[in-house]
């Protein structure tokens, strides 16, 4: 389909072609100061509201403002959107927005052959080219041969559009990302309204800034409309998603929402003790602005205080949480042992990042599984749950809270930087769909014994303020039933086994393991956590080729679902892709005596579906 529109001077007309596509991946890239995260997030909101399925992934340097123009200072935001259901932010992209030479250089290798590049030519000056280590401008030699290059002087055009505002050139330049966004809205046929409304909301108090961003956005859009260079508009139809109300969430947002939802459902006040650390910080930030839920946040002096204030709050009857990432997890270790000894409910959330030590703070990895399952002194079993998609973080946090309360135990929820910062549309649940949360409050002071157990071995919860239930708890071994300090040898054996049995018994209370694909066959790809999307996409592709491949994604890592062992034996081969050196594989081998093939990636990058597909095909070819 083609339409004819008037050009700027009102005389010439240009013909625009509408092309329907199913699936598009765009990467916005620029300096950390260029506002690419914001541009990406806005494109995402609009795209969500258009009704596409989508998945995003931001990729930014750990320096706040890395020196501008440098290769390591490039900040990127990738969005994959589609008229079909999708699970990943996409391996490679169709369109690259490069706000400077460094952004072009860093990202070019992942652009599809024949893909489109929108460059801000204003930033391709000698200085920036040198910083990006280009001897000759890639716009002038054949570096970009085979791509659709759209050279646009974005900074200049933005300044022109903002002439009437009287802002300084530097101030005007700040709006250039909105120009780029407007242009992309034109190219992908998206409405401006959502972003215009957002600009008003966000910058309402600074009318000049709001005006500038609005003008730049509109100028970008009409630039697409009227210039000859752009002759194709793409259209991606809404996806056939299940009916209902949606919102777009990142994993960290969803985690925060799951925490508050559990507090609301259980009727207990929420408490978060936390110390900022990438990539977990947003959870603390999100919750600190939800005080109208009675949810208290406490920014502690360190991670130890984060978990210990949470333990104090749990003792006081709150639904208590602590959030962190790997290094902070290491600091919390001793206190998690205390929480399991005093048998108080506590949820510990580890948003994993590349390790060990400070490692790769902004890059995803799944290498804290051993730490979660085994990383404490003594026999110290803790339930471990892993979320597998941004929206899935909501259910992970909610389920972890349910188990912590019902079983009076610390529970660890593992997410990772990829899920935490990635986003997807989330079909909002109805309140009635959320599992019940039972709270084992003590009820009879006459018969109350702090360490007496109910039928699933939980002890009663008596909170200061409850008359007649005064008791003492602590990290020293407890006497069975009375809870008094006990050094009795047989009592210790009883208590160690009791705690183990209580946690193992949770297997009776969690969903059975599900499988996507054949219930038996050649190959099952077994994963956990954030690699869900990449594995699922790979398995869908393999199944389309009629290959006998199933996907088993384990959410409960301790205890494992009851049917898991038996399920694993129904396939000729098991492939376990992990962003570590084989931690789930180790646990499954030890627990079920299976012999999986491992596929380990530790590059600070998520899996791509193609990598997994290729590995699976290699295995299938040997069968």
């Amino acid at each position: 389909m083609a339409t004819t529109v008037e050009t700027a001077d009102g005389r010439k007309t240009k013909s625009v072609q509408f092309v329907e596509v199913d699936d598009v991946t765009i990467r916005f890239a620029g300096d950390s100061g260029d506002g690419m995260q914001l541009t990406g997030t806005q494109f995402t909101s609009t795209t969500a509201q258009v009704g596409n399925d989508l998945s995003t992934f931001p990729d930014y340097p750990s320096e706040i403002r890395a020196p501008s123009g440098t290769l390591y200072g490039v900040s990127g935001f990738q969005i994959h959107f589609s008229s079909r259901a999708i699970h990943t932010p996409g391996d490679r992209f169709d369109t690259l927005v490069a706000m400077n030479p460094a952004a072009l250089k860093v990202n070019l290798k992942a652009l599809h052959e024949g893909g489109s590049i929108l460059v801000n030519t204003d930033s391709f000056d000698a200085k920036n080219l040198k910083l990006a280590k280009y001897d000759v401008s890639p716009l002038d030699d054949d570096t970009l041969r085979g791509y659709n290059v759209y050279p646009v002087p974005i900074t200049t055009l933005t300044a022109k559009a903002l002439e009437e505002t009287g802002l300084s050139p530097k101030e005007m330049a700040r709006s250039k990302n909105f120009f780029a966004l407007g242009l992309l809205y034109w190219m992908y046929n998206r409405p401006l309204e959502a972003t215009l409304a957002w600009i008003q909301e966000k910058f309402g108090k600074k009318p000049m800034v709001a005006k500038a961003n609005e003008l730049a956005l509109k100028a970008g859009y009409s630039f697409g409309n009227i210039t000859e260079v752009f002759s194709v508009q793409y259209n991606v139809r809404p996806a056939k998603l299940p009916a209902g109300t949606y919102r777009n969430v990142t994993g960290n947002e969803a985690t925060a929402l799951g925490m508050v939802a559990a507090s609301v459902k259980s009727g207990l006040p929420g408490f978060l003790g936390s110390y900022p650390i990438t990539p977990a910080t947003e959870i603390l930030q999100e919750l600190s602005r939800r005080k109208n839920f009675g949810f208290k946040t406490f920014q502690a002096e360190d991670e130890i205080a984060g978990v210990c204030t949470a333990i104090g709050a749990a003792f006081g009857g709150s639904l208590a949480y602590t959030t962190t990432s790997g290094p902070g997890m290491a600091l919390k270790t001793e206190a998690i042992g205390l929480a399991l000894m005093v048998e108080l409910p506590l949820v510990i959330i580890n948003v994993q990042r590349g390790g060990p030590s400070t490692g790769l703070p902004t890059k995803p990895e799944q290498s804290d599984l051993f730490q979660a399952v085994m990383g404490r002194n003594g026999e110290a079993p803790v339930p471990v749950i892993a979320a597998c998609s941004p929206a899935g973080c909501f259910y992970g946090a909610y389920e972890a809270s349910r188990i912590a309360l019902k079983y009076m135990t610390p529970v660890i929820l593992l997410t990772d930087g990829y899920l935490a910062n990635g986003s997807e549309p989330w079909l909002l649940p109805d309140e009635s769909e959320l599992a019940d949360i039972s709270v084992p409050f003590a009820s009879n002071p006459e018969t109350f014994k702090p360490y007496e157990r109910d039928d699933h071995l939980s002890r009663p919860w008596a909170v200061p303020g409850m008359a007649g239930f005064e008791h003492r708890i602590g990290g020293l071994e407890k006497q069975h039933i009375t809870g008094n300090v006990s050094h009795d040898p047989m009592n210790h054996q009883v208590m160690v086994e009791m705690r183990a049995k209580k946690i193992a018994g949770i297997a009776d209370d969690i969903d059975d393991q599900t499988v996507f694909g054949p219930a038996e066959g050649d190959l099952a790809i077994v994963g956990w956590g954030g690699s869900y999307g990449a594995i699922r996409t790979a398995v869908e592709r393999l199944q389309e080729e009629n290959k006998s491949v199933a996907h088993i994604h384990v959410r409960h890592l301790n205890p494992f679902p009851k049917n898991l062992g038996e399920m694993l034996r129904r396939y000729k081969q098991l492939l376990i892709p992990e962003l570590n050196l084989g931690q789930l594989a180790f646990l499954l081998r030890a627990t079920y005596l299976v012999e999986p093939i491992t596929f380990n990636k530790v590059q600070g990058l998520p899996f791509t579906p193609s990598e997994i597909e290729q590995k699976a095909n290699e295995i299938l070819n040997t069968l």
Partner: protein
Amino acid sequence: MSNEEKNTVIDDQIKVLTPKDLASDQDVRWCPGCGDYSMLSQLQRTLPEVGVKKEDIAVVAGIGCSSRFPYYMSTYGFHGIHGRALAIASGLKVSHPNLTVWVATGDGDCLSIGGNHFIHALRRNVDINVMMFNNQIYALTKGQYSPTSLHGQKTKTSPTGVIDHPFNPMLIGLGAEGTFVARSMDRDPKHLKEMMLAMYYHKGTSFIDVLQNCVIFNDGAFDVYTNKETRDDNVIYLEHGKPLVFGKNRDKGIRLDGFRTQVVSLNDYSESDLIVHDTKSKELAFILAHMNDQPGFPLPVGIFLDIERSTYEDELEQHVQSAIEKKGAGTMRSLLYDGQTWDIDNGSN
């Protein structure tokens, strides 16, 4: 709430507690003669006097001999992990502000492994009462030097004398912007109880450094301050509004010479020349805390500083209330549907 108000909150209906009611059924396992006993009995005497209900009292401790304290109280109690008592107590009080929270901690627990939590609790001014049992030794681990052990002190890990310079707990308390900073001694139960009462009524973190004799690993460390022969010449009791007089015959006093303190004889000076203690003066508190750095000066005992500042938990509670006023009390629906949402109709898309 003012002191008077706090007092009137006593519910007539509740059974009047006796010190005995506050003792748990567990045998107290400190060594005979240990100074820790004194703190336990004074707290058990203090609490019935203020009329707080037993179920509203929580005692939190870290690890150490002194940190066994909660097991011997019949209130709610939490024996935590080494150094973390103040973090646990802060979380408890902030989440549950109507409790009366006491912390029992040692000089190692509080100032070494828990030093970070200590200073941050003080600056936040969470309304908890911190009793530091200062025996200048790690007792539970059987006699290693602590951050308050004296320079040159011989212990199991310093057979040739401690090289570290000791902390002055008063100065840390003041430096960390504590609003109530005091010192007392296990051997002066009357004073100890007076201090505990003042701590209870102080709104904000109350910190007391109690010189506590460990009969096994550091016996006699505070002898000069506690034995009848020497104490009057070596201790000066700080009382708000009173001149700083001390000595067996109450014939000595402290005056200021510029910024320096001076011990003077009341034969040469009159009481009006002496410093008049003022628990509201931060400046004076620092001067007095430094005073016995030099030989020849008595050890000040009593309340160095007692000032008002809003507490962390009160401000947090206010933030919660004003958020509720502004946005309405959160519900599951307002939680989930907050922000930009969109609808997808059945099949039509």
